[in-house]
């Protein structure tokens, strides 16, 4: 059959069939181009204006970024993100890996135990924050529990201590996400070639050294994925702060996401809020680009 014949025979229905895939994808393409990239551009634009309660297009150059630079609260929020993010990621990884290795030892009720480690991940950060706010309540929470149990001098008021309140956020976030790290690594451990482990055992290597020297190093990609997801959770953390501390006491537990929300939607500092949102995007990109780069490079090697 010549291609000519096909064209002459093409009925409107065939043409429609040929265009259907593109037609079906079209709404999503519009959504992505406008709702993702267009809106990012729009926010970018707003960050160069002096918009307050309403958007205005009075361009003031980099003034909003300069104001952020001089803003004490923004520095507190950024430093908190480093402390919170660093501790949250490190502790979640350590606990997650440790639990995964323990669960990998042919535990009989593994499925049941896994369910327990992972259930906090199903909860909203608002629920988690509410629960931990109560657990860490100075006066009635852990504080009182340990005193009731006989530890007379025990005091625990980190939740209202400006220097320590960030650690409260870390505790709740670790409780919520470490089970997820466990699940990721358990899946990774299951994919490790068992014959390598057995060979190392025959050579007389002890189990911890097998895990530390052979198994875990081979899980580099899982580490990387977990690291990136946790970092992403940390940067976006907003609900947890909102429900646990509302950024307080004062703004001691502020995070960039909270700063952005407060300035944009309650304090009428839209330009400043937009600038802070752009910096958050920058932070995500700083993590994402190396990740994607290594993913793509890894694929080329295969």
């Amino acid at each position, binding site marked *: 059959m010549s291609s000519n014949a096909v064209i002459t025979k093409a009925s409107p229905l065939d043409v429609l069939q040929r265009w259907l895939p593109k037609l079906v994808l079209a709404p999503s393409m519009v959504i992505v181009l406008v*709702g993702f990239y267009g809106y990012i551009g729009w926010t970018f634009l707003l960050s160069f204006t002096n918009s307050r309660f309403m958007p205005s297009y009075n361009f003031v150059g980099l003034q909003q970024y300069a104001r952020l630079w001089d803003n004490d609260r923004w520095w507190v929020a950024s430093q908190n993100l480093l402390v919170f993010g660093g501790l949250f990621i490190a502790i979640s990884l350590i606990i997650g890996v440790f639990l995964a290795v323990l669960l990998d030892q042919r535990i009989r009720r593994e499925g049941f135990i896994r369910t327990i480690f992972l259930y906090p991940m199903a909860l909203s950060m608002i629920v988690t924050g509410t629960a*931990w706010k109560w657990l860490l309540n100075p006066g009635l929470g852990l504080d009182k529990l340990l005193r009731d149990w006989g530890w007379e001098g025990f005091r625990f008021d980190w939740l209202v201590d400006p220097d320590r309140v960030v650690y409260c956020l870390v505790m709740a976030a670790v409780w919520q996400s470490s089970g997820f790290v466990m699940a990721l690594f358990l899946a990774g451990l299951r994919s490790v070639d068992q014959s390598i482990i057995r060979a190392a055992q025959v050579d007389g290597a002890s189990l911890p050294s097998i895990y530390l020297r052979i198994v875990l190093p081979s899980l580099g990609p899982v580490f990387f994925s977990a690291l990136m997801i946790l970092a992403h959770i940390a940067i976006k953390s907003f609900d947890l702060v909102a429900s646990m501390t509302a950024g307080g006491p004062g703004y001691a537990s502020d995070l960039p996401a909270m700063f952005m929300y407060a300035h944009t939607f309650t304090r009428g500092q839209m330009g400043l809020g937009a600038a802070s949102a752009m910096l958050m995007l920058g932070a995500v990109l700083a993590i994402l680009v190396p990740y994607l780069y290594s993913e793509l490079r890894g694929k080329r090697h295969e």
Partner: protein
Amino acid sequence: MNDVSVAQRRSSDVLLPPGEGGAKRRMRAVSLSRLAIHTTLVLACAVYLVPLLVMLLTSFKTPDDIRSGNLLSIPDVFTLIGWVKAWDGVGGYFWNSVKITIPAVLISTLLGALNGYVLAMWRFRGSQLFFGLLLFGCFLPFQVILLPASFTLGQLGLANTTEGLVLVHVVYGLAFTTLFFRNFYVSIPEALVRAARLDGAGFFTIFGRILLPMSVPIIMVCLIWQFTQIWNDFLFGVVFASGDTQPITVALNNLVNTSTGAKEYNVDMAAAMIAGLPTLLVYILAGKYFLRGLTAGSVKG
């Protein structure tokens, strides 16, 4: 933390190569380290369960009981007053969440399935590029789109409406739902679709007759992922809804963080349980799919 290091040290004895000598001593070492592993796991389970247990215990206490007892004390009398008051406070918002979540989950899943189908089976020039652009949406910090999105909702007359929230959740859920289906369909042999095309089957026939019936697992993953994401959302709820249309997460946060009157922790905890129960229930009933959704975005190829 102490148990942790003990367990690690003990487990060094475990699983030595089955040599010839000292088998008995080794057996004892093995069972000791097994015991250490199990003890550590049980303790860890307790730590993970305590917050839930405390929430439940507190929710059944009276305010006086809360002040005289402690986090883990058993209620003097189990009372449902906290739950009743909590439902009075957040019950209406619970239904708001239902009204937002169900349509948003269904629409975003359907769109994701269609998108994934096209991106996997009907590639055209630029479709890969589009997929890349879409994937970035999985990592987008939503702060960067909040302002334009709220202007747009205002323009459309959807500010502070349930429909508006549904729209926002559909749009920003698209990246994940498409990713799920695209990665699932990519693993299905294209020959299957090509054969059906030669037989004259059209775009939707192939989708409905061939692909959809084998998509049940990924549909489950997607539905559960979207359900937990949207039910648990706070950011969109607090920005795009107000008053009567707020979802339960926002209502819970308002309830817990208002400083008027005496704090009723039993009500707070009951309300938190009400907000958490739907996703918890889904997780318990369909944990397998929940886990697969969590890992699909991260260990995908």
